[in-house]
């Protein structure tokens, strides 16, 4: 067994500033979120590869929250250039201005174990 499972390995890579996806050695498809077995072909040989860090907004919503609790915020689904989709948020613009089809690029928010991928307009 590897030192850690795919989820922890992903987070450890992210904590060092590297956003990586898995790529299946069997069918060559990219996989996210990180898994033990490729969901496309069942192969358990998955390589870690650097994410391009670009994608498009597949869907978007504004979660409504009271201003004193921090106000409204965006939650979006991003289709990565490599194929997989992920949940994230698009920031650096008003949640109202996040639109389906918008080109976005990733950056790492937070640091260490709190590191998280978020997106800004490309």
């Amino acid at each position: 067994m590897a030192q850690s499972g795919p989820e922890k390995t992903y987070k450890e890579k992210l904590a060092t500033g590297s956003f990586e996806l898995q790529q299946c050695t069997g069918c060559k498809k990219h996989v996210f979120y990180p898994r033990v077995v490729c969901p496309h072909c069942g192969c358990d040989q998955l390589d870690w590869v650097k994410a391009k860090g670009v994608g498009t907004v597949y869907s978007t919503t504004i979660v409504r929250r009271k201003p004193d609790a921090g106000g409204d915020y965006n939650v979006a689904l991003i289709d990565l250039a490599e194929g997989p989709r992920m949940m994230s948020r698009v920031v650096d613009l008003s949640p109202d201005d996040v639109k389906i089809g918008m080109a976005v690029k990733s950056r790492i928010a937070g640091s260490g174990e709190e590191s998280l991928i978020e997106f800004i307009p490309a």
Partner: protein
Amino acid sequence: MSAPHSDRDLRGAVAIVGVGLAGCGEAPGWSETEIMAAAARHALADAGLNAQDVDGLVVASVNIFLSGLAIGEQLGIHPKFTDSTCVGGSSFVGHLMPAAMALQYGLCDVVLVTYGSNQRTGVGRAEGAKFKAILDPQPFEHPYKPFNPPTSYALASARHMHQYGTTREQLAEVAVAARGWAQLNPEAFSRDPLSVQDVLKSKMISDPLTVRDCCLVTDGGGAFVMVRADRARNFPKKPAYLLGVGAAHWHRQISSMPDLTVTAATESGARAYAMAGLSAKDVDVLALYDAFTINTILFLEDLGFCKKGEGGAFVSGGRIAPGGSLPVNTNGGGLSCVHPGMYGMFLIVEAVRQLRGETGARQVKNAEVALVHGNGGVLSSQITALLGTEATR
């Protein structure tokens, strides 16, 4: 080599002969197991049976660990067949399949399926959500703080609007139709008048869904009793026969759903129709799991009542409301009747009552075939069943 049996062997092989509800709306001071027990008692009485007649026990609960054992103990049932599979709100529709198989194979003779929840008046949902986040973390979604389930359904709604031009007004039509039916149902929780404008002007929860696009949060329980068809006519009430059932799931989290405008109901529905030898045009009354207004639109499309993308236009002009051409969610649905967390049970209870002809002002004339569609998770588990009267067997 082909399988020795097929799903067709189960068509019409079992029937629901008792249904019951308990604690719908608010049931302060009642535990979940007690609500389950009360619902079970009502369903058994409806069938002219006692708990001691039950030898197959089926249950699902979000909160109660070992729920099947708890309700067996509570009711004094020593089952020969037991199943506590939880696939969210679709669970009780899903239970039709193993229950039918157990009955058909003679593993047991009387199956009781029961459910109860006190999520409105019991332990706070916010507290519960904190525990669930610890026990069942979704590390690739939770950090972004989706307000689930609404946010996941909002993402599906937004995509459907983008791809097909579906409007907020069309989503609102679903809530207005449900309310219209609820006004004909004395047991429904929300019966005040509701207009499209009311829905649009309500508090926004997760765009484009307002609080009126979201299901109720109530207490409540329900139960039903199943037997083999050969003895179904010996019970006090008209049997509702299981004609077809199919299940499918493709994802757990919304970020893993392949296409947010197409649900696994396309697959579960096809299987249920094939087993029953029926199609959408044969259905007289529908019970679709309307956790959110987008659900009804997606399921009408995916179950063949209209083309993909046309669900919004289809529900407009009161088509699925009382007086419309297609009766959907005649009890008022999860949007206006009852929603204790896993609504699938109430779909079945209403469908059976419609097939019996005992629903009063909301009765659909000549209801012979009912379609029940359960949804679990975030558009995740999809389970379709077709129930019918003696004439359809």
